[in-house]
Structure formats: C-alpha cells, structure tokens
C-alpha cells in the first residue's frame, strides 16, 4: 500500500466512524430523554384492546411484572405468550427498568413490542429514578389510566409511595374518584392494576386510607394484580376479601394467565416456563 493510500484509508475510516448513520450510538447522556421508536404506547394499545373486546363478557389476559434487567427471560415469556392461543392482551405491572436508564426503557419496550397482542404498562418504582418519569410518560403515557375490555373495567393506579410523596393516606384516590365518573354503564366488574401491593414498603397499610373508599362505588371489584416483590403470592390485605395477585419477576420465568368467564366468575393459572 502506498503512503497516500494508507493516509486515505485512515481518513476514510475516521470519517466513516464520525458520520455513522442512525446516530443511536451518538448518546448524549444515559439519562437523556431522547429516544427513537414507539411512543404513547398505552393509549394506542388501550384503543386496540377496547375495539377487539367490545361487547364481550369473556376475556383472557396475561399479567407479567418486574422484567427489569431480565431481557433474555422476558424474551422467552413473550415467545410463550405469543404461542398461547386466546390471549386478548397483556398487562405489565411495572418495573421495566432497574436504573431508569433511557436505554433500558428502549430495550424492554422492544422486547414487549414483539407481543402479538396489545399490552399496557403500569409505572413501577424503578421506572421513576433520574429522568425515568419523563421517559415513561413519553413512551407509555400517563401514570394512572383506565380502560374497558368488554364488560370489565381496568383501573391502572400508581402505588409507588416513596416516589410520589404527598402527605398521609393514599395519594391516588383523586384519580379513582375522577375516573369513576367516566365509567361506562355496561361495566359489570372491575380489576385494579398496580405495581406495589398494599402492605408493602412503598404502599404501607397506614397509607391506604382513602383507597378502599375511592374504590367502593366501582362495580364488583373482583381482584387486583400487582408486582414489586418478585414472587407469586395471593394476599387478602383488606377485610373485603378481594384477592391481590402478585406476579413474580421475569427471573422466575413465570406469569399469570386470567380467564374471566361470561357467568361473572374467573379463574387463573400460573404459567412456569
């Protein structure tokens, strides 16, 4: 190689690196809030769920949670749900990330986007660090929302008490009160979705004042689903006997599959991969 060619070769390599297309490599900061790809996912998927299940009394949905930093395991869970017939949608109970890095949100979103059926995501406490709240709201939407799948109302609430300090009692009560006014007349039962279960570190029992009162007018609150503590457990934290199904983290390679029946009953199974 002549000298001129060598210099040209090196300069070309340098300029190719500098002008690399895509620019995903050109990161400004791990907590920079810029990201490419799908945004406002919850609202988009809620619309898909409501359209696909309109008028139905029978539903089947999967619940996953705490997938943070378990990308390979989440990949397998997504594959399994995709191969399961009859699933209408998937609920993720929060903690998509461990450190709230923007890259973590993108990696986990790209795994979940592989789901054949629509999915919705609740906010987890690990998604609230640094600029996590901003990225979460850009990528998925508001922290508290609700949707109607057939005759069932799903209220997704924020129970990350340490990340949202606002006096004593339940800080999400105002959402439940306001949300009730927009409940469709066809609602026959209610399912509550949250990240931290009542009685846990971020949502201790002494901060649940106002929670049951706000939930009281909702028709037939059958059960709640939650995550946070990384194991599959069923609890009955309140005297009303409503079960709270806690879903294990992705590391346990497990998820819950709920079947809501037309006669108003339901059953569920834990799927272990």
């Amino acid at each position, binding site marked *: 190689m002549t*000298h*001129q060619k*060598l*210099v040209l070769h*090196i*300069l070309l390599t*340098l300029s190719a*690196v*500098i002008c*690399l297309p895509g620019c995903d*490599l*050109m*990161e*400004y*900061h*791990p*907590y*920079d*809030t*810029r990201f490419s790809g799908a945004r406002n996912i919850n609202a988009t998927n809620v619309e898909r769920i409501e359209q696909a299940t309109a008028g139905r009394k029978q539903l089947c949905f999967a619940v996953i949670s705490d997938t943070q*930093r*378990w*990308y*390979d395991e989440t*990949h397998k869970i997504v594959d399994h749900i995709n191969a399961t017939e009859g699933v209408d949608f998937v609920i993720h109970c929060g903690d998509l990330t*461990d*450190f*709230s*890095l923007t*890259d*973590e949100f993108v*990696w986990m979103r790209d*795994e979940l986007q592989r789901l054949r059926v629509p999915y919705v995501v609740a906010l987890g406490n*690990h998604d609230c*660090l*640094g*600029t996590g709240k*901003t990225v979460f709201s850009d990528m998925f939407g508001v922290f508290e929302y609700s949707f109607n799948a057939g005759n069932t109302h799903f209220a997704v609430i924020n129970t990350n008490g*340490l990340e949202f*300090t606002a006096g004593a009692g339940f800080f999400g009560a105002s959402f439940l009160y306001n949300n009730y006014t927009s409940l469709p007349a066809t609602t026959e039962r209610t399912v509550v979705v949250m990240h931290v279960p009542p009685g846990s570190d971020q949502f201790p029992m002494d901060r649940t004042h106002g929670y049951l009162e706000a939930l009281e007018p909702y028709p037939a609150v059958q059960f709640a689903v939650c995550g946070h503590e990384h194991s599959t457990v069923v609890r009955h934290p309140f005297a009303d006997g409503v079960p709270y199904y806690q879903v294990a983290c992705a590391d346990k390679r497990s998820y819950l599959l709920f079947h809501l029946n037309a006669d108003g009953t339901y059953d569920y199974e834990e799927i272990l991969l």
Partner: protein
Amino acid sequence: MIMKKFCFKSALGSLLLLALSVCPANLYATSPEAPEKPKFKELLKPNVVTVQYAGGIGCVSAGMGWERCKKRSLTELLLGHVPHYHKTQSLTTITLRQYYTPWEVKLPLPSTCKGALKLRPLTVGAYINTVLFDGDFWTHEPTSHYGGDYYRFTTRVRFALSLGQRLTYEFPEEWKHLGEAAELYYDFSANELSIISAVPNKRVTLADILSLGVGARWKF
C-alpha cells in the same frame, strides 16, 4: 454512607494525583537543558483544549487537558451540556477522564506538507461523569426518603470505560506560534450500569451499550 462518600472522593483525588504528580511534563522530559524536577505549578498548567460531541457525557462537552508522560497519558476535565433533557430544562455534567495511549504510528505525508501526522491506533480510557445542579439525581439515595439502602446505586455519577483512536497533526516549526498540534479523535464508551445490563443478557449486545463520542483537540 460515610464510607461510600469517602471512597468516591478519594477515587477522584487519586486519578488527579496519578495524572498530575506522577508523570513529569513531556516538555521537560524531552528537553536536555530542562531542570530535572519541574515545578508543581508547571505541572498544573493544562496543555490541551478539547471539544467533544456526544459520547454519553453531554451533547457538546468542552474543557481542558493535561498531556504528560511522553504524550502517553492524557487527563481531561470537561463540562458537558445536554439540551432539553427534561422538556424545557437542560442538564450540565462534569467529566474527569484519564487516557492511556501505548503507542503511536507516524503516517507519511506528501513531501509538500510540513509537520507530522501521527495515528494512535489505540487509546484506552476511563471516566467519571457527574450531573451538576439537578434535584432529580442523587449521589446517595436520600436516607430520609428511602432509608439509605433501597436502590443501592447512584443516579448522579457514572463510571465508564472507553476505547478509541486519535489522529494528530503536529505543526511544523513556522506554525508553532499556533500551538503544538491539532487532533481528531473518537471513543466508544460504555458505562457501568449498561455493562452490568449486557453481561447476563444475550439480548443486550455490545453495540447496544456503546456510546460514540467524536471530538477535536488543540495542543499547546
């Protein structure tokens, strides 16, 4: 908590000491009539100005550097700016970076060109980046809030490793009033949180965690 704080401060201190006090200034190392022990004040004088785009430490970062140890060691202190990271707010960061370049290759220049063109095919580096002036980030999670050991990491400070290359043009004698040299460089870096995300997961690849930074240096 106290222990952690102590360790962080001493890590910063050690890096500075390593770069500034152990290595004699290149100027003196090559000049036969120079005094054997350069004055401490001389050692503190920066001899590099750096501007960088991206690379995980800001959109645009700028600062100064100290090139020592026969130009094998470079220590830099940079201020970085991330615009609109939080809708309307911007983010300011500070980076302390240490490079080591084991060797350099002199590249041929056409006979009409004066000066010297040198490639450093490998630069290895490490940096500490800290977010300044923002309440959303903590070095130690607030004890009052989380009890002190809930998340067990810092959102404010990142540690990263980097690999890259440099192309340096050393000015000919008649240009020396402009300085010693000009340099273009790039680095691929990965921070510690990305590395621990990628290690146990096949789905997270090296390309996913790398961040590219490109920049220019003026040496005087």
